């Protein structure tokens, strides 16, 4: 079962998305801020990270940079999730090292497609 690390500070968004991902056959680990996200990325070694960008303690951009600069976690694909559906946000997310980008509110089928694309053939 592919493991997803969901880094999201908003309780309702975290609850909704984790439940729906679990229903779709993923093991879900949650982190409530960027710092915890970086720690769980290292200890849990998820297959994909879904990263909110406006996070407390460490924001999503910085957390992604840290995940990507640690050789232990650098290979884990990160999908940025942001409420501001702006072009600049997308560029910023990619600049921070994110592998893909999606906007909130989450369109689940679209997000599942992106997750599947990043998991590729390695995780069946």
């Amino acid at each position, binding site marked *: 079962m592919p493991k997803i690390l969901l880094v999201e500070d908003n309780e309702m968004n975290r609850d*909704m998305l984790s439940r729906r991902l679990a*229903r779709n056959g993923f093991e879900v680990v949650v982190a409530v801020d960027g710092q915890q996200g970086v720690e769980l990325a290292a200890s849990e070694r998820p297959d994909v990270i879904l990263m909110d960008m406006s996070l407390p*303690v460490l924001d999503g*951009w910085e957390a992604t*940079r840290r995940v990507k600069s640690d050789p232990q976690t650098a290979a884990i694909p990160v999908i940025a999730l942001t409420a501001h559906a702006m072009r*600049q946000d997308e560029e*910023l997310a990619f*600049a921070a090292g994110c592998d893909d980008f999606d906007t909130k509110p989450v369109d*689940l089928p679209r997000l599942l497609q992106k997750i599947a694309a990043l998991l590729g053939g390695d995780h069946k």
Partner: protein
Amino acid sequence: MKAGGSAKDEHHVPAKEVSHGQEAALLRATLENMSQGVAMYDVQHRLVTWNELFRQYLDMPDEFLGTDRTFSDYIRYLGKRGEFGDADIEQELAKRLALLSRSHSFERVRPDGTVLEVRRDPVPGGGFIAIYTDITERKKAEMQLREAKEAAESASKVKSAFLANMSHELRTPLNAIIGYSEILMEDAADRGDAASIADLEKIDAAGKHLLHLINDILDLSKIEAGRMDVYLEQVPLVRLLDEVKTLVSPMMKKNENTFVLDCEAAIGSLRTDVTKLKQSLINLLSNAAKFTKKGTVTLRVRSDEAAGQNSIRFDVIDSGIGMTDEQLGRLFQAFTQADSSTTRHFGGTGLGLTITKHFCTMLGGSIAVTSTPRQGSTFTIRLPLSEGEAAPVLTGAAAAQSPPEEAVPGAVTVLIVDDDPAVHEVLSSTLSKEGYRLVHAYGGAEALEIMRREPPDIVTLDVMMPKVDGWSVLGIMKSEPELAPIPVIMLTIVDDRSLGFSLGASEFMTKPVDRTRLVALIRKLAPTGTGGVVLIVDDDPAVRGVLKLSVETAGMRGTEAENGQAALDWLAAHQKPALILLDIMMPTMDGFEFLERVRKQSQFQELPIVVLTAKDLNERERTFLAENTLLILSKSAQPIGTLGSALAAIAGRHQRE
């Protein structure tokens, strides 16, 4: 005198028979019945004739009203009484005497606040006549009008900001409504509970409609506040059109419409803002789908030449209900659909077309519509192909290309506190190059939390933040022993006025410049009567021209410089001007740097400088300010020196960028 009597008098009593005495009485009566003050001077400038209003307006004592008194006596008397403020009386007199040979007029504010319009005309045979009109009420009304206008403009801005915030606040709970109804739908589907699914779909659809409405309102308020930025890039059209097709296909199925995408194979690419173009096309196509039943909706894309300009033309053609001319007239106005019943029948926010029109304008293009009732409508968007777009460009290239920042061990940690992600972007790209380790906070509370856990070496603090603002954060920091020593750089990006003032600006005016106010300011700031020089510093020759006119209206001479450096050079080579009018956004050397440099020179410390700023700072200008100005404030109890030296290093590094 009755109107009828005039012709009769003329007929029976010829003018030559009017005695000298009668003529004088007639003249006297005319003068005293005028609503203006009048004074006539002979060739030797002696006061020959005047009326009561002249005496009242100028508050002249009787001894000055006699034929042995001259214009010069009277000006000197007024000067001694303080009517010209601190100005040199002889200079004031010389100025007035020089003007007497031709007709001229000017406004004078008396010490009691009365505003007089003074008009002087030479009379044949020498001498002149002076006419005084009391325009105090008119001036007051003008001022009230201007204030009302400014109040209305600021109210409109506040409204836009409120809407933008409100929209954000509304979206959060709405996302929960939509999200949980989707979860419940999935649960219901697992249980095979079809009745619940139908109900939940209604909640979901209503929620999504509301979300759409809020997004539209947010867009429109951003546009109205001048905060909508254009992001240009090379867009391959075939790929864009494929995406659009995928997105609109479900809408087309709803009313059993056929969707046709008709595009030249070699359509190529277009330099534009892909998000705005996509949204515009989807707006038009979803409208077409909504107002057409069992018909055809076509999106036709062609390269086109209109008005000598190469462009791409997008036609959205439907075979729907169409519109009357009257409906067409109201089409692009916010909050109106063809008629109010349309909203009930077809739904929609009524904002889509307004937003689309704004977008097309922002992209340097246009939108047009033709329609026949019951036959269909065609909406046409034209976007220019040429490189020279007028729209402002905010390239994300720099952000995209900059390598991910690496945390250097032992590096100085800077906590960036700002609610605006754009500011984080700008500061990150600048500061990370300098080897700083960056930590980001998007609100005051979050910033304090981070500081207490992991004290940074330096904090950059935005003044304007929702909930806990920069001043409050600073106050809390200085009250906590662990946080108090951390140096703070206050960033004021919204409030460039205080930034300018702290750097030494004398006055501020917003562009477009109100000429009357400018002339008044020049008169206030520049020593009157010197006929002095006003140095106009602005990179736009058209603006310089307009300013020069105002300067000359105020009776001064204008000289021009196209940027801060040119102005510094001019100052070094010439005598001190009476006043400087200074633009902020300029190439080579901007207004802020110029201000700083000029104020460092002791002979210019008192020189009046009026800073001209754009009314609404757009993203580009805010970025510019964020990149070029770091305001250092010493709000802490500690001496400026200790704080200052740590910060000057950053500010200095920043400035050299």
